[in-house]
């Protein structure tokens, strides 16, 4: 999965790594092993240091890293026996939302998620992970299927937003998202939501109502992307960093306001640095969450889920 994309704030790490590589090439002729080891420790210290003090905007950049695992990567590595199901039975299959049947351990589940592409070609195919109404309607169909066959649902959220296109509006983007919120709120099976990358606005929430809201350490979730927020409130695209700060869009921020239930830690350096470790963590978290939800009766589940969302919001009176 490695690519050459380095985030700005990672440059000091990359510089040091280059230096180590150079020294290694000299190690045959010179006895510099101790110095190399010293530098390697220094790199690890620097990396932890940088990743301990990430700004909100830096996290947004990690959430968008082109090497970051996407929905299908989690499905492939954390679940087994995946059967992808296609189409909304009405218009077309939307590749920006994928879904189907799978197992995790001995639990059968329905899994749904936004899907981004990795290169130009696959990004065009996936529409950069921006669903059209038929994507939400495919998800709606799969949620119904889950309910009918008593299968818990896992949703992976990772989208820059619902597609703002002419045909999307014609076919009822707003209605498609609204219908899912309504359906998910009272769906009679457990629903686990995991925000794995970008959680932008209604386009993310459209498959994001559930009993447990989990979020990866470096994912972001808000009502608007920092750039768009900057352009509207500051009337310029230049204030994205301030906008990211103001929006308080990181996992710890969202735990603070009672929206996110649990932060899933990422490997130091982000999920893309050690995908295998990320998949292992994800799998064990999902198993654990499924087993807890599995012990709650259906009517309690729906009552609790609705109450959970009723509690969201801050006001005075």
């Amino acid at each position, binding site marked *: 999965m490695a690519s050459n994309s380095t985030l700005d704030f990672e440059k000091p790490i990359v510089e040091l790594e280059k230096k180590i590589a150079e020294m290694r090439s000299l190690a045959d002729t010179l006895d510099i092993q101790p110095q190399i080891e010293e530098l390697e420790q220094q790199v690890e210290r620097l990396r932890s240091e940088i990743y301990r003090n990430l700004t909100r905007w830096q996290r947004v950049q990690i959430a968008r890293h082109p090497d970051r695992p996407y929905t299908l990567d989690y499905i492939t590595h954390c679940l087994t026996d995946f059967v992808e199901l296609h189409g909304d039975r009405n218009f077309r299959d939307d590749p920006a939302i994928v879904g189907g049947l799978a197992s995790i351990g001995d639990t059968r589940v329905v899994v749904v998620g936004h899907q981004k592409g990795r290169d130009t070609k696959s990004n065009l195919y996936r529409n950069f992970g921006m669903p059209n109404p038929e994507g939400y309607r495919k998800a709606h169909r799969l949620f119904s299927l889950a309910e009918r066959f008593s299968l818990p649902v896992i949703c992976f959220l990772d989208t820059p937003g619902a597609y*703002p296109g002419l045909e999307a509006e014609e076919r009822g983007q707003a209605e498609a998202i*609204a219908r899912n919120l309504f359906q998910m709120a009272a769906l009679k099976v457990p629903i686990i939501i995991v925000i794995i990358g970008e959680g932008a606005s209604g386009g993310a929430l459209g498959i994001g109502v559930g009993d447990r809201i989990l979020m990866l350490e470096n994912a972001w979730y808000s009502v608007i992307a920092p750039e768009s927020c900057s352009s509207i*409130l500051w009337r310029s695209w230049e204030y994205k960093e301030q906008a990211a700060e103001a929006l308080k869009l990181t996992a710890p921020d969202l735990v603070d306001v009672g929206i996110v239930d649990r932060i899933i830690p990422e490997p130091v350096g982000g999920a893309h640095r050690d995908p295998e470790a990320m998949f292992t963590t994800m799998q064990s978290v999902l198993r654990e969450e499924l087993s807890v939800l599995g012990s709650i009766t259906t009517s309690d589940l729906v009552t609790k889920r609705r109450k959970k*969302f009723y509690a969201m919001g801050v006001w005075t009176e």
Partner: protein
Amino acid sequence: MAWFLRKSKNISDSSPAQREMPDGLWTKCPDCSTIIYRKELEEHAYTCPNCDHHFRIGSAKYVSVLFDEGSWTETDREVRSADPLDFVDTRPYKARLKEAYSRTDLPDAVTTGTGRIYGMPVAFGCMNFGFVGGSMGSVVGEKFVRAGRRALESRSPFVFISASGGARMQEAALSLMQMAKTSAFLTELAEAGLPYISILTDPTTGGVSASYAMLGDVIIAEPKALIGFAGPRVIEQTIRKKLPEGFQRSEFLLEHGMVDMVVHRHDLKKSLYTVLSHLMGGKRG
């Protein structure tokens, strides 16, 4: 500038497009430029007698258009926006709120209460586009649910008028969650077999359109209202094309099957009553 186009003193907070109809003695129709006397405007339910332009009006005027005289009781007026994130952009959110209170004398972007329509008790909410662009924050979500609860408790229908540019950005993810909160509540109303009528007025976009506005058992739109998820400007920037005339207007949505009917504000009370009578008149065994 002509005296009948009075502008509020402070223009920094909202563009003219964000505002509701001015409260002057005379008003000029933005569509056909007819000068309309206030009394005439009232008699025409705040629409232009010449061209049927529907002026943007707030909750107080909708209450006068829809409810039997003396039947209206406002509820939860004391529920006010907090500033949970200490949000500051070019100005603090707190300052924006303060200014909105003093300019509009409204409790927030929504007013709720109960009233009667030709004698039929109804739980009701109406958005105020003049308050921070009718944006949906925690207060809108909370008051929507409370107004709907009154419908549940009194077993009466729930009617809600939308007018909103979308989410209240200054409440960030909390405002996003109001979409889920309000939609979740509507499942309770549906389970109780009570009708929920959604009325869409100009404009109904963003997070409001993608939640309770599009979830009505019956959806009524006022003529020529802008209704959609993404704003026309964002769509034009995305597809790099001019949008066709009438795109995202009520009549366009009717044609595409997204609303049940387009009703002139004149006839709104009557239509609402007829629909509610039908839905409440089923024989339950």
